[in-house]
C-alpha cells in the first residue's frame, strides 16, 4: 500500500488513539465491559493497522522481532508470577486477597488489574506475531 497516501496518513494518525483506547479497555475491565483480552486485541490491531499501511519491513523497524517475542512471554509470566506471589504471601495460587497490599478488597482488586495487564500484553503481542509471521512476503 505504498502508494495510498490517504491510507498511510490516516492509519498513522489513528494508531495512537486506538492504543489509548486499548489501554482504557484494559484498565477499566473492572468497571465496564472489556478487560485484558479485548484490550490486548485492540492494542495488537493498532500495530497491525500500521503494518498493513506501511509494510512488514517498516513495521519490523518499529517493533523488532526480539521485543515482540520477549513481551509475548512476559504477559503469561506476569499472570503466573502473580499466582506465585499469592502463594509466597500465604494464600492459595491466584488468591489475590492475600497479597500484602492493604485491605483484602484492595489486594484482590490490584491482583486482578495485574493479571488483566498480563493477559493484555500476551494477547496483543501474540496477535502481532501471528500477523507478522503469516503475512510474510514470498
Amino acid at each position, binding site marked *: 500500500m505504498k502508494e495510498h497516501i490517504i491510507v498511510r496518513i490516516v492509519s498513522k494518525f489513528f494508531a495512537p488513539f486506538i492504543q489509548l483506547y486499548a489501554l482504557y479497555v484494559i484498565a477499566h475491565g473492572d468497571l*465496564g465491559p472489556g478487560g485484558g483480552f479485548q484490550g490486548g486485541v485492540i492494542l495488537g490491531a493498532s500495530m497491525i493497522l500500521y503494518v498493513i499501511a506501511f509494510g512488514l519491513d517498516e513495521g519490523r523497524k518499529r517493533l523488532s522481532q526480539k521485543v515482540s517475542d520477549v513481551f509475548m512471554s512476559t504477559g503469561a509470566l506476569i*499472570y503466573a508470577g502473580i499466582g506465585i506471589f499469592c502463594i509466597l504471601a500465604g494464600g492459595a495460587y491466584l488468591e489475590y486477597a492475600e497479597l500484602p497490599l492493604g485491605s483484602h478488597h484492595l489486594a484482590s482488586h490490584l491482583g*486482578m488489574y495485574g493479571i488483566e495487564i498480563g493477559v493484555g500484553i500476551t494477547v496483543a503481542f501474540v496477535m502481532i506475531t501471528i500477523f507478522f*509471521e503469516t503475512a510474510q512476503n514470498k
Partner: protein
Amino acid sequence: MIDIMLLLIIVVCAIAALFMKDLLGATIILGVYSFIMATIFTRLNAVDVAFTEASVGAGITSVLMIAALSRTKRYEYHYTKEQKRKPSALFAKIMSLILVIVTGAVLVYGTIDMPEFGDPEAPTNQHVSPRYIEETHHDTGINNIVTAVLASYRGYDTLGETTVIFTAGICVILLLRRREK
C-alpha cells in the same frame, strides 16, 4: 422483531460467504457476520461477549484470514465439469451433505431440552447467577461481575486461556518463521 431480522441477516451472510468464489470477499462477509453477531449479543445484554466478538471475530480474525490469503490464491479453485462428475467427487458431496444434516439434526434435538430463554426457573438462574450477583462485590470488591468471574472465580481457566494463546504464538513462530543463516 429486530432479533429475527438480525438472525436472518446472519443466515444470509453465512450462505453468501459459502457461495463466494472470491475468498477475500468471503472473509469480509464473515466480518459482517461477526459484527451482526456482536449486535445480537448486545441485544442479549452480554456486553462483554459482544465486545470480544466485535474485536476478535470481526477485527483480528478477518485480518489474520487476509494475511493467510496473502500466502495462497485469492480465488477458489475452479473445478471443470469432468472433475465435478467423477464418482469420487459425487460421493464426497453426498457424504458431506449427510454429515451436515445429521449434525444439524443432533444440534436441533439438543435444543429441545433447553429451558426457555430468560426463564426464571432455569437451573442457571436458580443457583449460579444469584450467587454471583449477590456475592461478587463482597467477595472481590469489583463491580463488573464478568471480569470478577474471569479473573477471580475462574482465575485458573483464564490462566489456561492465556497459555493457549501464548502456545498458539509459539507454534506460529516455530512453523512459519524463517531462520536467518
